[in-house]
């Protein structure tokens, strides 16, 4: 079997849809620094190029006024037990354009794998970008993910990111996303992660609501067991009239897991408002006992509550 086929199979095993032969769907398939496939559609430029050992630069540019119908599929990964993949991603959504990207990052056999993502994302006025990233790291806990994003959303632009890792091990995740928002711009960043054993999750998401009527939502839902650890640093600053934001962090822990939530909210304009909510603890007892009164045992009931939280 060739590398491309192995990568696509691993992607499908991790729950990905088979879209790579559809000519209406733009895609990129990368295994470490090998570019195994790339395809683009009208109005969109999707391109990958190797720039150094283990390093690939990926460009996504949507031309003004183009609303790309089908989500762009990106499949990144490292197939062997050991390896390194660094992706420098440059996204530019021009005026009035829209695109959705679904990135699947798969490291099914990882024992010692490093995945580094450095992204610069620019969304021009009235542009909209949805980025959904799904990770599958296998069962060894041998993955380290380091992701940095520098995001700029111009007036009336909109960005939604959704990260999920719900099956298998996490290993180590270290995220740092920073977004600047202009007038009427909106950003929503969601993370759903399930950690176990000695998994370590560190997320820092920051949104700066600099523009009038800009909006920001940072929403993290984490479930941890065994001796998993999570640190969530959510930061929203609002400094213009009508800027509004909300930070929400819910973490359910079991066993010896440890969760921390450090919300930072800063408001420097009298007509701006930021709220935050954090709930960390074991499964809520009223929720649990309601399900037990339907005949479920404690384990089944807490499974439903945790799955619900992560699917939310």
């Amino acid at each position: 079997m060739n590398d491309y086929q192995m990568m696509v199979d691993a992607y499908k095993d991790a729950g990905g849809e088979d879209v790579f032969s559809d000519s209406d769907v733009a895609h990129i398939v990368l295994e470490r620094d090998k570019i195994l496939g790339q395809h683009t559609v009208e109005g969109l430029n999707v391109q990958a190029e190797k720039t150094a050992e283990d390093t690939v630069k990926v460009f996504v540019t949507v031309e003004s006024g183009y609303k790309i119908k089908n989500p762009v599929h990106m499949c990144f990964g490292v197939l062997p037990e050991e390896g390194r993949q660094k992706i420098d991603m440059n996204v530019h959504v021009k005026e009035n354009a829209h695109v959705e990207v679904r990135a699947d990052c798969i490291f099914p056999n990882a024992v010692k794998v490093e995945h580094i993502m450095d992204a610069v994302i620019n969304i021009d006025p009235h542009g909209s970008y949805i980025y959904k990233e799904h990770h599958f790291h296998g069962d060894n806990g041998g993955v380290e993910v380091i992701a940095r994003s520098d995001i700029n959303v111009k007036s009336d632009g909109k960005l939604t990111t959704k990260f999920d890792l719900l099956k298998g091990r996490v290993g180590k995740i270290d995220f740092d996303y920073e977004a600047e928002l202009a007038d009427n711009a909106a950003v929503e960043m969601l993370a759903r992660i399930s950690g176990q054993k000695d998994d370590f999750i560190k997320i820092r998401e920051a949104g700066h609501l600099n523009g009038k009527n800009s909006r920001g939502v940072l929403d993290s839902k984490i479930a941890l067991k065994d001796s998993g650890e999570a640190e969530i640093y959510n930061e929203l600053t609002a400094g213009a009239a009508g800027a509004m934001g909300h930070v929400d962090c819910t973490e359910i822990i079991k066993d010896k897991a440890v969760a921390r939530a450090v919300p930072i909210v800063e408001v420097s304009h009298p007509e701006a408002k930021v709220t935050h909510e954090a709930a960390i603890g074991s499964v809520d007892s009223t929720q649990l006992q309601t399900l037990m009164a339907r005949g479920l045992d404690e384990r089944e009931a807490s499974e439903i509550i945790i799955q619900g939280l992560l699917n939310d």
Partner: protein
Amino acid sequence: MSKLLEVKDIHLTIDEAEILKGMEFSIEQGEVFALIGPNGCGKSTLAYTLMGINNYQPQKGEIVFKGKNLNKMKINERAKLGLTLAWQEPARYHGVTVREFLSLGLKSRGEDVSEKKIRDALNQVAIRPGQYLDRFIDKTLSGGERKRIELASLILMEPDLVILDEPDSGVDVVALNNIGEVINHFRENGTGILLITHSEEMLHYADRAALVCEGEIIRQGKPDAISDYFKSYCLPCHKEVECDTEVAS
């Protein structure tokens, strides 16, 4: 008719406060037994104690359901035996749809999940299935909607005894009739009901009623008579003067 539930001299103390002080009553198959009484008299506490909620283990007394002593059983064991509870303030969940929630009762009885049964149960509580099945039972549902969905989930469980803790509170007048119909549905299927309520209208659905005062049942009898007594002697409280604890059943 045979005794479905027997509550014998239940005493419960939480944080040194004795909240239930020798509760005693029984419920028969298909019987609707109403509990009324002022705020804080211990009605919900009794409901939790019967269901076996954590920290509501009685220090004294016996709960016998279908001839079995429940005192040491876990909540889910009691549920499997046919006892269940609709909370006064039902829980809300992230990411759990109405459909999933309702299918749990069916699954736990080992029944296949039937879309038709789920829809029928929702219709019975006047919740339109098409609009609600895929919604989450989170804070976006109104209080009344949430309570009616709770009732629908009990219907699907086909229990032998349900404890309804103020099923009518926060529910509009139209839905109130539906709750009455649900009570009748349970009764017709031989399900006993412990109905905790503050509402006169709900009392009409009861076969018998009891008045609770400070953790004790001070009177049992016909719902009308108990309600009249409550209104004339308990509001405001005349306890020092002439409250008698005779049981007239």
